């Protein structure tokens, strides 16, 4: 059975701090690792990672994948209160169906 584990489950930081969110996976026929941000409503897509060691970056967010050690990290620098959200990672499989196995998420709270 495929499994994705995120840590920590929750995190409280102050504005300006840098945070690192972790995601480890055991996914049969692994193809890609995806990160989403969920605020009050539906998750929104952040990154898709398919190759080891290549950093994806969007503003203050960046992510990298290690396919040998089966994990990914999401970094957020200079955090802002608007970064408060649940961050979800998901493993996608090479099954031509686009199905994903999600982790339980990390709840990030950024205090002013």
């Amino acid at each position, binding site marked *: 059975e495929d499994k994705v584990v995120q840590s920590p489950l929750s995190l409280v930081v102050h504005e300006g701090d840098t945070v690192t969110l972790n995601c480890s996976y055991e996914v049969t026929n692994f193809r890609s690792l995806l990160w989403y941000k969920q605020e009050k409503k539906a998750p929104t*897509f952040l990154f898709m990672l398919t190759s080891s060691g290549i950093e994806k970056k969007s503003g203050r967010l960046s992510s990298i994948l290690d396919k040998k050690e089966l994990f990914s990290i999401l970094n957020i620098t200079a955090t802002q209160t608007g970064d408060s959200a649940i961050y979800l990672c998901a493993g996608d499989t090479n099954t*031509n*169906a*686009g199905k994903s196995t*999600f982790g339980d998420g990390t709840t990030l709270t950024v205090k002013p």
Partner: protein
Amino acid sequence: DAGITQSPRHKVTETGTPVTLRCHQTENHRYMYWYRQDPGHGLRLIHYSYGVKDTDKGEVSDGYSVSRSKTEDFLLTLESATSSQTSVYFCAISKGQGYNYGYTFGSGTRLTVV
């Protein structure tokens, strides 16, 4: 958002009644998914569809059925609702042809079974 809508947004129903949730997309994507989200469990796949009349089960499909008679509509039915099916239900579309470039989710349906 991105042409995917869910209805209803909220529903309260009684144990034992059938319930149908609707997902509608306007972008003609082939792949559609139903997930449920519960505290401590992340998102879990219920059913998915890879075309009209083509559906398959996910990891938590017991007690649910789906239908897709048109490309744009994917219906999720709880055949006889139970309290354990109280959850937030998300529909998602995938823009790739079986390759997940990142889902676009609907706004969700909050279902309460009393």
